[in-house]
């Protein structure tokens, strides 16, 4: 239906994306489209290219083949398209990567002030709003090292939200956390999903996938092997490699 095309323009689209590290073929003609408001969980064995894939979306890694489009901007190597994409897409890392020499509040206001040229008072108001939302407003004036892992990761989520991105990329956000802290971070992410944020999450938390994902995407050896709604994906995986992976991961949970 051509008349409704504009409504169905995906927020993020990867077409035939290929990437090599030297001779190592990290991504093999990956196609993935993410609609506005959609939540994708990306899973797969380690080394399957899932982290590489989301790192290509905000150009932390360069692709050698194919095309990535974010909000109508085709990502090429020019600084202007990279800037445009990074403005729209926030990212949360496995190792938090908070700036250790700044307080939590300073971490949150840096990018809005430098990139969006926001006044300090306004940036602080925004920061407090999102710190409140991830429930660590009381930690605003502490340094990252004074916080627990779970609190640090929630601060990192707040920092990304302060740029008011249209989509969020999560790169194994709970993998570096002690087990008792995983839940508070997942709860924060679930809240974010409920509020309609477009999300791509690389995670092995299958409970989270069941609860919030619109689609689960399984990758192996740099390829998307299969994808589907969580119910279907978990109940009836089509591919042998998916079954093997799920068998292994569910046995541990």
């Amino acid at each position, binding site marked *: 239906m051509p008349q409704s095309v504009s409504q169905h323009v995906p927020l993020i689209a990867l077409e035939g994306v290929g990437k090599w590290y030297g001779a190592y073929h990290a991504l093999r003609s990956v196609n993935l489209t993410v609609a506005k408001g959609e939540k994708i969980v990306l899973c797969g064995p380690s080394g399957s290219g899932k982290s590489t894939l989301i790192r290509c979306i905000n150009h932390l890694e360069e692709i050698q083949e194919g095309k990535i489009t974010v909000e109508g901007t085709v990502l090429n190597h020019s600084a202007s398209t990279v800037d445009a994409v990074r403005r729209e*897409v926030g990212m949360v890392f496995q*190792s938090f*990567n908070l700036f250790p*020499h700044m307080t939590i509040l300073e971490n949150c206001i840096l990018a809005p002030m430098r*990139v969006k040229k926001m006044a300090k008072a306004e940036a602080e108001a925004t920061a407090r709003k999102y710190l409140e939302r991830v429930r660590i407003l009381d930690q605003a004036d502490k340094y990252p090292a004074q916080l627990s892992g779970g609190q640090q990761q929630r601060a990192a989520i707040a920092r990304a939200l302060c740029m008011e991105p249209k989509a969020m990329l999560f790169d194994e956000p709970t993998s570096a956390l002690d087990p008792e802290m995983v839940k508070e971070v997942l709860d924060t992410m679930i809240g974010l999903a409920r509020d309609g944020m477009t999300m791509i999450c690389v995670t092995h938390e299958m409970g989270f996938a069941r609860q919030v994902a619109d689609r689960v995407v399984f990758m192996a050896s740099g390829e998307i092997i299969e994808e589907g709604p969580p119910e279907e994906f978990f109940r009836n995986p089509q591919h042998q490699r998916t079954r093997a992976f799920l068998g292994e991961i569910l046995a541990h949970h």
Partner: protein
Amino acid sequence: MASIGFNELYFLLQGLKWTLALTLIGFIGGGVFGLMVALARTAENRVLQRATAGYIAVFQGTPLLMQLFVVYYGVALVGLDVDAWLAVAIAFTLHASAFLGEIWRGGIQAVPKGQTEAAKALGLHYVSRVRDVILPQALKIALPATIGFLVQLIKGTSLAAIVGFVELSRAGQIVSNQTFRPLTVFAIVGLIYFLICWPLSLWGARAERSLQTASR
């Protein structure tokens, strides 16, 4: 044998003034250009990386004395009539830039890669990434080595005597020749150097300890 009185001490302190001035020039000039060298060394641009690596290799691999000669007589050979001050300032700046550049390169590279990635993901540009995120962490890491180099530089300024500067060591030599009391004079000169360098070394050691406890 003449005695060492107020005039002799005053003469030594005049020399100390030049020692400190030369150190300051070297450190400030070396700080500014050394920062550029460090940034070029860690830039994504291969040409910049190689050019600065070569520069560092040359100035770390040759004696400061020779560098002073080359710059002092070199500029004269080219036909430029520059003040001895300027020539020495250039030589010390070039020397300090190479060492500080290399020290700070190490500091920059010791900052975890995730810091740059997080800054990039937030949309921060190069200048902000360097100024707000990388350098504050890198300079803290590099502080002990920077102080160590500063101590070397203070003592290294004595080589400026070779092109006619009467700094502390040269002043000591002159006083010693006048009074025929080399042991006393150089004991005083040594004590002055020590009183300046030792507190710096203590500060450096303390900075290093606080870094170690921070990383634990």
